[in-house]
């Protein structure tokens, strides 16, 4: 059996990553019937789970359902742009919503491909392009309970989640509806499908 650490390594040990030594947040999915995993809060809304209840008391999420399918919806946020962006930047007039499937242990957010590398899973390149997003801006890391957590990869202009800045190297757990805010206007909303 293997476990995925917050830095995305595959580890044979469940307590600390056997590659980088960071503490494991949670176990891999194939083990999520264990008592420790069953007592985790609701992966959708974060409500603590009481006992062995099947459904979340707040949002009705079925804890026995198959692993969650997540997607990222990218929009341009006019209000934030007006509040925070540099005056020399223009807000895009025709931004079409973009959708990305969020799967796998590591989902990168960034822009285009530096020569030779594969592009990020959530690739924000292409017009209209947000000039303040880094090539490798942030990463979503799958946790043992099937949810994702975000890490800013020391991007030039930083990352916000629901308007709160993300500290360097901090791992921010995400839930349904959370907004990841980067660059001048880019907002990525996390949804379950």
């Amino acid at each position: 059996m293997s476990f995925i650490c917050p830095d995305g390594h595959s580890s044979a040990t469940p307590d600390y990553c056997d590659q980088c030594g960071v503490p494991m947040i949670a176990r891999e999915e194939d083990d999520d019937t264990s008592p420790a995993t069953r007592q985790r809060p609701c992966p959708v809304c974060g409500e603590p789970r009481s006992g062995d209840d099947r459904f979340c008391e707040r949002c009705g999420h079925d804890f026995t359902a198959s692993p969650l399918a997540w997607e990222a919806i990218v929009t341009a946020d006019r209000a934030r742009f007006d509040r925070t962006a540099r005056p020399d930047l223009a807000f895009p007039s025709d931004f079409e919503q973009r959708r990305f499937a969020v799967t796998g242990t590591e989902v990168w957010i960034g822009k285009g491909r530096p020569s030779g590398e594969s592009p990020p899973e959530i690739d924000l390149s292409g017009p209209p392009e947000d000039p303040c997003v880094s090539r490798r801006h942030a990463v979503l890391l799958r946790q043992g309970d099937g949810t994702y957590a975000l890490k800013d990869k020391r991007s030039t202009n930083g990352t916000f989640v629901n308007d709160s800045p993300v500290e360097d190297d901090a791992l921010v757990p995400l839930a349904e509806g959370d907004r990841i805010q980067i660059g001048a206007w880019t907002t990525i909303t996390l949804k379950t499908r």
Partner: protein
Amino acid sequence: MTTFTAAVYQNEYLPPDGSEVNAIVTVTSDVGGPDAGVGGRDAGAPASAPETAEIVIIDTSGSMAVPRRKIKAAREATSAAIDCIRDGVAFGVIAGTDRAQLIYPSSPELATATAATREEAKRWVRSLKAGGGTAIGSWLTLALGLFETVPGRVCHAILLTDGENQNETPQELDAVLARCEGRFQCDCRGVGTDWQVSELRRIASVLLGTVNIIPDPAEMADDFRLMIESAMSKATGSISLRLWTPQGAHVAFVRQVAPTIEELTDRAVEVNALTSDYPTGAWGRESRDYHLCIKVQPRGLGEEMLAGRVTLVEGDSVLGQDAKIRAIWTEDRQLSTRINREVAHYTGQAELAECIQEGLEARRAGDEANATFKLGRAVQLASESGNEGTMRLLRAVVDVEDASTGTVHLRRDVAEVDEMTLDTRSTKTVRVGRPA
């Protein structure tokens, strides 16, 4: 069945960007249940004790006849040792000069201990005469060949000498040691004052044994008996301390710090890129302390990292629970500047051994100022840590004016045997007093 427990003593908090993680790991073996005697000496043969082999190597060079009671004491001590060898153990006796001679048994293999073979061996030992040179490498080579006739046994030897290795170059001895390393353990004893402490220490160190001085030949028999009994009480084969460290980490040192100081860093045998084994030999019912120093890549404030994972292994079987050495980065200086008591204690004990060896070296070289400084620091450290055994030995070499400041005067009338005793036993440590 032998199981091991490992406990970690450390301050896991590091300042921002701090990279050095220190920890003391106390490893305790549990042999044959809680009723087995402390130190293994009173314990009966453990039910699952491995099969063992034992060789006594006696220096019979010409100097052993000066004075005559030295060779006489060696004969008596060897007989005493033979009496302690349990039935069924494969054993033999080697006499060493500038070549090695198998005294017992007569064929080039080991005998099986019974009442009859023990008596026969002792008859041969009584006939030992002194004469010839000293080539320790040839003695060890013969012992290695004999041990190879009994594969699968836990092998142990006692080596007694009274002089330095004259008929071999240090390189020849090194080559022999490299062949013997990991094949058998060897406790080394020097009698009189004509042997080299550093030479015997090196042999004992590579062969995972103890080294000691027998100042008076009359004490030899008791010492031999203790060594054999200790060897017979071992209940395991070769045990290694296995250390995992994370990517980007570097093992600064691994040092046994109790019951004696023993550097293990260079003995690392790589298991994989992140894991190494450090051989520790056979274990009886006992407890040993290790000081580990690991350099890691710092992580962010508030983050935690496993800096090391220690297990005890026999081959690739893990025996008992692991011990975790952790690192947590914090801005709280109250947390990060606290020095763990165990780490501080054993850092002092290691410095104590180093000061004694360097102080005696300086004294021999005629550098009195440096000798006074080093031995003074040793007195201060021995006094602070309550290492009374070492303090007593130091008092034979220096007059202590004020132990708390390390103010001492070199004594003029130092007996060579006192100096060598201090040198040999400088690595003996005391354990930190832990609240029960």
